[in-house]
Each structure stands twice: as C-alpha cells, then as structure tokens.
C-alpha cells in the first residue's frame, strides 16, 4: 500500500494534476451553487472537457474535484438561500438556513466547510483501507459472479432509489437496460433495434442521456415553477465573521467522528449515497442529542448542521469504493464517472489497481488535496462566490440550457444528437412529473452492456443456465437480489395488514 501511495503522490503532485484539482473544486463550487444544477449535471457537462484531456488520471481528478466542489457549493446555497442545489444537501438547510437568518451565515459556512473537510478526509482514509482489500476479493470473481453482482446492484438501486415504490424504480431500470441494447454491440457484431436509422447504429450516447435525464428536466422545472429558484433573486448579502468558538468545536467533534464513518459505509452501499447518508446522519444525531440540544435541532443547531455535511461528503467518498473496486457504480454520479472512464479507455474494476495503479492512487491522493483546496481556497472566497447567486434567472436559465446543449454537442459533433437530447429531455420531464426516479434508468443504461456481456459469457462457458446452479456464489447473489426487491413490498404489505387490524400469520 505504501508503494501505491508513493505512486499516487508522484502522479497527483504533478503541476497539471494539481491544477486539475483546483480547477475542478472551483468549477464545482461555482456551478454547484446554482439552483438546478446538481453534481450529476455538472459532471455530465464537464465530461467532454475531461475526455479531451486524454489523460485518465487528470480527467478523473478533475471530475472528482468537480464532484466535491458541487456538494460543497450545494451546501452554500442551502445555507444562504434555503435553496439546495443538490438533493444531498437538503438536510443541510434544516439548520444552516435558520443560522443564516440569525445573522450567523459566515459561521454556518465555516462549520459546513470544516465538517465537509473532515467527512471527506476520513472517508478517503477509509477508502484507502477498504478498496484494496475489496478488490483482492473481487479478483476471485468470474463473469457469472459479476452478472450476479450487477443484478444485486441494480436491484439495490431500485429498492433504495424509489421513494417507497420499487416497481416504478424497477421499470426505470428495465427501460435503461432496454435502451442499452440499441445499436451495434461488440459481442455479436450485429446491429439491434436501430429501426434502420443510421443515427442509432452506434447506440444512444450516454452523455446525451445523462443531460436529458438530469440537467434538462431540472431546468424545465425552474422555468415552470419560478418559486424553485425564488432565492436566486436578490441573494448574496454581506457575509462576515467566519469564526466559531472552541466550545462549539468540542461539541461538534464527536458528531463529525460518528458521521464520517456512518456516512462512508452508507455511501458504499449501492443506491444509498449522499442523500440518504445526510438525512440518516441528521436523524441519528438528533436522537443522540439530549434535552436542550435536541430542541435546538431545526432552529440553527451547529450539530444539526455538522451532521449532514459530514455524512454527505463521507458518503461521496464511500460511493467510489464499488466504482473503483468492482466497476459497479452505486449512484447516478458515479455512473456518469464510470461512463467517462470507459470513454478514456480505463475499465474500473478489481484489475484497476494492478493494471493502472497510478490512476487508482492518484485519485485517492487527489481526494485529500481536493478537500484541502476546498477548505483553504474556497472558504475565504465564499463571500465573493456567493455573488453568483445574484444572477437573475432570466439570464441563468438560457445559459443552463445552452451548456446542456453544448455538453451533448461537443462530445459527438452531431447536431442530430441535440434533437435526440430535446426529445429524451421532454420524456424525462414527464417521467419526473409522474414521480419516476431517473437515476436507476441511467445506471441501468450504463450497466446494461456489461450485464449482458457477463451474462452471455457465463451462458457460453456453461452451455446454458447451469452457471446459476454450479456457482453457489452467483446463486446466493441472485437470491439476495430477489430478496432486496421483494422486501420493501413485503414490509409495506405487513404494515398495511397491521393497520387494518388483521392478525398476522406469523
């Protein structure tokens, strides 16, 4: 591991990569603050630029920096405007916004920055310990196990991402898998479902899909419902006094310690991620707090601010574990990162550490650097960066739309792609209206090709479906997947039965 850290240090401390970290963090903070642009949209917009860099290490460092910056920027708009730009920072607004109302905006931002720093750094240390261990286990996996593992990942995402409606999330996952079968796959050398259209021959581009699923609907919602960006008018007041007292630091320390570990492990689970980690972190700390402190929660408690901020950053780091060790993204954001890596000819997975150790370790080391950059560089800049919130929406929205279009165009240089983007975007907006989760769709789309490849490989090796029986681990994984999908429905069913006063069978 020491050797790896050395490789990472050399790679990450090159001038180019240091610049990438700084640029990524700044861009992420800058854009993440805007309502309507979450980390997924920002990373999707940045991908063409990252691919253009050509160097996978630099590209991944840039994108990871953007990711961190976006989460941090999202908490800034939550605190200052009560307008979270990112789902993962909704819980931050619970206590951050009341603090800002009391005139403690500067202190709230500092606490958020320190908590993010601690969460991100502790998360990166845990990543350094767990990722190599997990990837040495993952080397024992065959294509059958990979198939099983991906099915588990997809079911877990459907089970957790759907707001209590697993069937809807499953439907979106299947739609993603179906979309992935369009075009000419490497496996069979024959075009499928292209309907004879040349433009579909190479399949649907994942950047276009990502833009259409996340950036466009959010922008459309901003247009439709001005209240969503209400805060964007006239924000950016004076921010002074960034300090917090020693007593407050002692009060926060145990919260930050607990939430970094808890957040990290929630982030590792597929489908959970920063949003769940931050809400759970908030809830846990609220229950642990005693008497007066508990009553403070929701009215500007420093613990209530530190808990979700630590947890969401630790979870972001945690979500890199399945991506880097198994090549399976656990969240929409890491799915987009996976797409970018594949485009750069790097296949994340257990072999990543042995084949391209410099990529793996440079990313981890740059996480530390990124956290320091966020703390040292961004914090003093916050009062100035916050001015961006004063951009009127009449100018902001056309720009968001324009960057969405550019993101899809630069990658392909194909104007038809833009029409596909608009079409898919309208579809995605309708799906959002009907409360369908869109992250499972994108993850299904990105995993679809790999899932089918591994499935086909196992079928060929075992001449049929025997691999399910002959490899007990695959069998176990598939049973786990079925369990994950059925459990929420079963529990809801039992809860209903109880509510109706009917005696349970067991």
């Amino acid at each position, binding site marked *: 591991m020491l050797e790896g850290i050395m490789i990472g240090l050399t790679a990450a401390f090159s001038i180019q990569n240091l610049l990438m970290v700084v640029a990524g963090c700044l861009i992420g903070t800058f854009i993440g603050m805007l309502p309507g642009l979450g980390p997924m949209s920002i990373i999707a917009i940045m991908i063409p630029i990252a691919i253009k860099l050509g160097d996978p290490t630099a590209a991944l460092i840039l994108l990871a920096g953007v990711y961190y910056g976006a989460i941090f920027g999202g908490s800034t708009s939550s605190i200052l405007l009560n307008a979270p730009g990112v789902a993962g920072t909704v819980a931050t607004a619970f206590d951050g916004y009341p603090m800002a109302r009391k005139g403690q905006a500067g202190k709230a931002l500092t606490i958020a920055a320190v908590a993010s720093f601690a969460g991100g750094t502790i998360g990166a240390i845990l990543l350094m310990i767990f990722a190599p261990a997990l990837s040495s286990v993952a080397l024992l996996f065959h294509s059958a196990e990979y198939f099983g593992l991906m099915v588990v990942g997809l079911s877990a995402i459907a089970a957790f991402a759907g707001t209590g409606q697993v069937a809807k999330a499953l439907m979106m996952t299947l*739609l993603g898998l179906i979309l992935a079968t369009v075009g000419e796959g490497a496996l069979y050398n024959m075009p499928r479902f292209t309907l004879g259209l040349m433009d579909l021959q190479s399949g649907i581009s994942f950047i276009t899909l990502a833009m259409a699923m996340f950036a466009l609907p959010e922008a459309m919602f901003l247009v439709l419902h001005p209240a969503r960006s209400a805060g964007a008018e006239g924000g950016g007041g004076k921010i002074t006094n960034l300090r917090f007292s020693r007593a407050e630091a002692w009060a926060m320390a145990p919260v930050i310690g607990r939430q970094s570990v808890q957040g990290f492990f929630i982030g590792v689970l597929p489908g959970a991620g920063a949003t769940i980690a931050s809400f759970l972190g908030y809830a846990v700390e609220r229950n642990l707090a005693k008497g007066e402190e508990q009553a403070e929660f929701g009215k500007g408690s420093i613990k209530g601010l530190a808990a979700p901020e630590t947890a969401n950053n630790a979870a972001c780091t945690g979500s890199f574990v399945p991506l880097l060790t198994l090549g399976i993204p656990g969240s929409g954001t890491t799915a987009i990162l996976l797409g970018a890596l594949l485009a750069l000819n790097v296949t994340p997975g257990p072999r990543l550490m042995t084949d391209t150790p410099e990529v793996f370790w440079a990313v981890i080391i740059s996480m530390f650097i990124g956290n320091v950059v966020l703390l040292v560089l961004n914090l003093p800049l916050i009062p100035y960066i916050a001015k961006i919130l004063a951009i009127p929406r009449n100018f902001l929205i056309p720009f968001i*739309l324009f960057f969405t279009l550019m993101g899809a165009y630069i990658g392909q240089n194909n104007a038809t792609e*833009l029409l596909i983007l608009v079409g898919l975007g309208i579809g995605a907006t309708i799906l959002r209206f009907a409360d369908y989760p869109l992250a499972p769709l994108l993850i299904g789309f990105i995993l679809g090709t790999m899932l089918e490849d591994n499935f086909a490989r196992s079928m060929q090796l075992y001449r049929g479906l025997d691999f399910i029986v002959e490899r007990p681990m695959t069998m176990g994984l598939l049973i786990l997947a079925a369990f994950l999908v059925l459990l929420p429905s079963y529990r809801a069913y039992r809860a209903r039965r109880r509510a109706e006063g009917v005696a349970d069978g067991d």
Partner: protein
Amino acid sequence: MALDRWIALVFITFCCAYGYLAFFTMDDLLPPFMQRNPVWPSTFPKVLSVMGVVVGLIVLLGLEKPDAAKEASATDINYRRLQDYKLGQALMLLALMALYAVALRPAGFLLSTFTFLFAGSAVLGERRWALMALVSALAAGCVWYLVQEVLGIFLRPLPFVFGV
C-alpha cells in the same frame, strides 16, 4: 387514471413492440453457425421485454400501494397544477432548443448561440435589450474561443455562405 399509470401503459406497449422484434424478427437474421450458441443476440432482449411487461403491469394495476402522502413543499412540482405554471415559456424554450439544433450547422455557432441566448432571456421576460445583447455576444464569443482554440474542437463559427 393518474399520469404514472398512463406512463406504465405506454411502457407496456413499448415492451410488447420491443418483445415482438426480439421474439419474432431478430432471429431470422441469425447466421446458422451462431444458432448453435446457447445465447443469441435476442436472448437478453427477450428476458427484458418479459420482465418489462410484468413490472409495467404491477405499476398499471396499482398492486404496489404508494407510501402515505408526502407533505408537499412550496417548491415541489405537481403536474395536476400544470396550467398554473409557465407552460408557454417552457414549451417556447424547448422549441428554441430544437431550432438551435437544426440551425447550428448551417447558421454557424456564433450567430445561432447569440440568437439562442438572446431569445431565451426574451422568452423568460427580460426586457433590457442592450444588456441582453451584450451578455449573449460575450458568452457566444468566449465559449467559441474556449472550445475551438483552447480545447481544439471544431465549431463552425460563421454561416456556411462564408465558407469553412
């Protein structure tokens, strides 16, 4: 019938069409030597279409009850109040995006981007014409410079009549 169930119905129809292609037409194209394989190009789509129909039916028939109604926040969006929203603006912006896609090649990047940004803010109700023109022109110029000169990705700047 609620919107989510209509979508489920559309999805089932889509899966049926997809399944029809997979079950009945794809295998005809398969060369004989590949037919001895245990897995065909159509195998995975067949599985997907069947699962899609099953899951779609679960949503359509409402077999899975949603959780107790979530409290609606002021910023939450609800399609039942669609006419209260600025639907006209949204549709016009979408049309503008489609227009941009069509015009980008023939009209060149600078002109179409300027028009898009200018018209976009006009649609949203901005009336400070001079400021709008300045911002749009500046943005179109800067982005073109960044993409073409710094990143080295070709973007035709001027309308096609001027060559290049």
